[in-house]
């Protein structure tokens, strides 16, 4: 294995962590990591030095965006139970809580927040991964945190507030 490949291998645990939080599904997450690794291995010639870790996060983030777009085009049938647990009940205690709060975020905000707080990337690195200016990273982060706070404080989405 060359240095490039060793560098990739060392990042796999972190990529799995990020993908798991991003998709909240172990199987989907590992598929996403696998696709990321395959693409990275195949694109060695496109990697011109720099942060290998950021480059891998970039590939994974883009693949996940493609995945969500493809899903959006396909009609999905959601089981009633999933639907209920996705939002109809109030916050619970424990990890499920933060999981649901994350699920409520739009993709860009979720990815921004996770790259900062879970993966420890700098604002600059997140801006590079997402291909946006730092100002956009800041506003995504602010919106993500505000929305999670609203969720955890027990505020239901407007449609569900019945009084």
């Amino acid at each position, binding site marked *: 294995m060359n240095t490039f490949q060793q560098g990739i291998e060392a990042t796999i645990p972190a990529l799995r*962590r990020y993908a798991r939080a991003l998709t909240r599904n172990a199987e989907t997450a590992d598929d996403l*990591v696998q696709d990321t690794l395959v693409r990275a291995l195949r694109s060695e010639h496109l990697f011109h030095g720099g942060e290998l870790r950021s480059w891998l996060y970039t590939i994974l983030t883009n693949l996940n965006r493609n995945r969500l777009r493809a899903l959006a085009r396909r009609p999905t049938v959601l089981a009633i139970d999933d639907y209920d647990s996705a939002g109809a009940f109030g916050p619970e205690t424990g990890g499920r809580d933060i999981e649901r709060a994350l699920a409520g975020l739009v993709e860009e905000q979720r990815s921004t927040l996770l790259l900062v707080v879970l993966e420890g990337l700098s604002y600059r690195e997140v801006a590079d991964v997402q291909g946006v200016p730092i100002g956009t990273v800041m506003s995504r982060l602010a919106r993500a945190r505000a929305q999670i706070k609203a969720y955890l404080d027990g505020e239901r989405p407007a449609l569900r507030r019945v009084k």
Partner: protein
Amino acid sequence: MIETPVTEDELHAYIDGELPADRLAAVEAWLGGHPEDAAKVAHWRTQAEQIRARYGAVAKEDVPAQLRLDRLLRRKRSWIGIAAAATIAAFMVGGVAGWMARGASAAAPSPIELLTEDALAAHRLYVVEVRHPVEVPGAERPHLTQWLSKRIGYDLAPPELDAIGLKLVGGRLLPGPAGAAAFYMYERASGERFTLYCSRTKAAATAMRFSAPGRNAALTWVDHGVAYVIAGPSERDELTRVAKAAYEQIDADKAEKKSGT
């Protein structure tokens, strides 16, 4: 002492360790005097801790076999083998970029994969039709061309494949993953049917790709923002011959239009 107002961005930077050192004292003083901001910052910190508590351990799990790099390296080689076999030199419409974009398989079907899937589904559905395989019969070629070109937003005459023994049965309009699709059906005297599916796409130009998920197979390529899928019985040489004939005609039609004759 005059207090410099602290912005919300600075509060985020403060907890994320991105605050310039010379603003640290100002932010801390500000939090001391603004309990609502202090509560907000404390909440953000709790969120971060919960996220790390929930997902941090994933990085400590054993890496599953499917993600072992040595295994993936072996698979990589076999993919290249498949790619080489399926890419026909004569069809290097857009270089190998198309094949390189493939492989993002299970998690993210590419626009091309979605289109191919769709075209194969339409092929399977309609080639078995005896009485109503098409909406407009091939005998009304000018009308068919005009109607479908208008609906897919792209000038396209169904290629004439009589030279290779294929008669135009007719065509129909279909919903595709990226908008309307034109669907033409051809028939051999022996009854074998081939279909051509065309739809606009945002995908970049690609070389021709072969996929044979079952009894039927497809050859897909993208040229100038339009995806073409030829589907037929799963016999690669035969399908390639049909695709090549169709490609050449479409290409010639385009060249003709461009030169304005």
